[in-house]
């Protein structure tokens, strides 16, 4: 069914298709529309979930944890300070190996008070054991949410998945959306370690150093295994629904001399910048990074790299650029742009490529 939808409503529509038993959520700008829409679905009976209107994001994730350990499907959504407020339980969800799915509408962190897009919120949780995908269109927000349940609930993974969409720049814009009947694309959840009262066990109890260490290692092994599960899921999705995704979305990369790497909506804008640059005779390509955890193998060759980060790790650098340097050993021109919803046009992005100084860092609009 073709409709016009915002990014937020696309996530809610996908959640309705996935039919979780429990949704626990707290509203926060710019995520609010997701939980409002889910509340509407539950009220009008088109979604059979138990909706728990919790008193905080810490409790939102805690309630999802409590529900998930009984073996049922769960969902929540948050943003920015909400994600930071639930950070403790974000760790707990991954450590407890629970396939919770969460949408995070990326937003800046105060102070100063700012509700617009930035990726620093989600990237502060990148070491928690959650899989993280960054989407760039309304359709992709819908599709990634559907795939997230199947990936998280695969017994080779049993780790939570976070779908990231840029605040306002994607959450509140309207685009065409094709909604699909999911059918058996998301199989019923079977959680091998679900609580059984006829087989009592202790969950999350004290562990020795050796056992704790092994549990951490198991998370990393599953994170590595999730690479294969993501690939399989994206292939199955393409076969079922005809829409294809992969680790990186590449645009005119085959013969490119310079690559633009970015996440989320800026990665999509970069495709227009590529066309502008190509018209000028610059052989540019765009490589939008979708998954930051697990981090993709990047086929960069010997091309020059312009990496745009809508985030920053103070005292160090843009987080995507840092990750690329660490993973590939290649230098780049690191542009810090779009923090707090700063407007970045495709003309600006083309300018970053024209003015690139490999090995340097540039704060767009601030740096002299």
């Amino acid at each position, binding site marked *: 069914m073709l409709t016009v939808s915002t990014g937020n409503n696309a996530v809610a529509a996908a959640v309705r298709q996935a039919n979780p*038993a429990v949704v*626990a959520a707290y509203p926060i700008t710019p995520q609010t529309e997701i939980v409002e829409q889910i509340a509407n679905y539950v009220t009008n009976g088109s979604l059979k979930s138990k909706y728990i209107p*919790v008193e*905080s994001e810490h409790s939102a994730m*805690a309630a999802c944890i*409590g529900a998930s350990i009984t073996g049922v499907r769960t969902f929540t959504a948050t943003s920015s300070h909400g994600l930071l407020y639930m950070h403790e339980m974000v760790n707990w969800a991954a450590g407890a190996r629970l396939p919770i799915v969460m949408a995070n509408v990326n937003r800046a962190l105060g102070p100063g008070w700012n509700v617009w897009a930035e990726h620093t919120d989600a990237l502060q949780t990148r070491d928690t054991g959650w899989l993280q995908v960054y989407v760039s269109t309304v359709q992709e927000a819908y599709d990634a949410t559907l795939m997230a349940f199947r990936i998280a609930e695969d017994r080779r993974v049993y780790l939570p998945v976070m779908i990231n969409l840029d605040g306002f720049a994607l959450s509140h814009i309207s685009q065409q959306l094709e909604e699909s009947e999911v059918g058996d694309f998301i199989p019923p959840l079977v959680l091998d370690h679900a609580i059984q*009262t006829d087989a009592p066990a*202790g969950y999350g*109890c004290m562990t020795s150093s050796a056992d704790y260490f092994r549990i951490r290692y198991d998370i990393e092994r599953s994170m590595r295994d999730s690479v294969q599960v993501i690939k399989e899921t994206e292939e199955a999705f393409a076969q079922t629904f005809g829409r294809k995704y992969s680790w990186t979305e590449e645009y005119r990369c085959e013969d490119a001399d310079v690559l633009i790497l970015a996440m989320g909506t800026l990665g999509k804008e970069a495709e227009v910048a590529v066309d502008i640059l190509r018209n000028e005779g610059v052989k540019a390509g765009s490589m939008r990074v979708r998954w930051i955890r697990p981090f993709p193998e990047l086929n960069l060759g010997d091309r020059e790299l312009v990496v745009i980060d809508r985030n920053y790790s103070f005292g160090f650098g843009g987080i995507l650029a840092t990750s690329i340097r660490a993973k590939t050993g290649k230098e780049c021109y690191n542009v810090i742009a779009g923090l707090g919803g700063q407007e970045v046009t495709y003309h600006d992005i083309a300018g970053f490529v024209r003015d690139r100084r490999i090995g340097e860092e540039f704060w767009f609009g601030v740096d002299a």
Partner: protein
Amino acid sequence: MSGTSASEYIWKCTSACAGCSSSLILRHVLKAAGPDTVLVVPACCTSVLQGVWPNTSFNIPVYNVAFAAAAAVASGMAAAFESMGRTTNVIAYAGDGGTVDIGIQALSGALERGTNFLYICYDNEAYGNTGMQRSGSTPLGARTTTTPGGKTHVKKDLDRIIAAHHLPYMATACSAYPQDLVKKVQKALSIKGPKFMHILAPCPPGWRYDASQTIEVGKMAVKTGIWAMYEREYDSLTLSGPTKAAMIKPAPLEDYLKMQGRFSSISEDAIRVIRGEIERNLRLLKAEAEGTC
């Protein structure tokens, strides 16, 4: 005890301290609840006496969670069981720190939302498993490792905060009166919706008395009226027998304070304040029980 399960849900040889009354409380709670029960436990003494993985001293599933999260995790569990049509008891069992301090927001939210669960606060009046630091539940004048000169604030009135949520059932109890405790747990679990129990749990190392005195100290708390026992069903309050007796003929407060090393340096002023608190509390409870307030 009659009317409870003959099965044991806490095995012998836990890592509880000698004379630990909270493990005694839990033994009775679980016997009253039976095997179709899941326990949610935040950071507290209970998460320690459960033992170290892969061993457990509990014969029911126990879900350990972060300090502030017990009531919210229980909310999620209760909703999930309801969605599956299961009637499993969800019991959150948390210490006073995890209830009156860091966990109170989640508890208040769960009560307000009508969560179908039983939340039990076992109150040893300090952060017990980390070596007795002050909590909001520590009484005035009690020495802890973070109030070495004696606490300068009165105990937080948790029960009236809980009562303000107008829940179907709440009760106070004491480890020294197990029959009363069991009856209250059974009654709580027979009611749908949010239930709360606040149970005094004397603690030998923290309160500094000999482990053999756990029951005597608990009884003396009730006899002096510093700990009152009652049930509240919505707005109807019923005083429990030992507290009715304490209202008629209270034991001297000094006898209770002298039993415990934590009160060794308490001032006369603090004793006066505590006495005033006891009188005020009992007066209010009596008026409520008689329907005259």
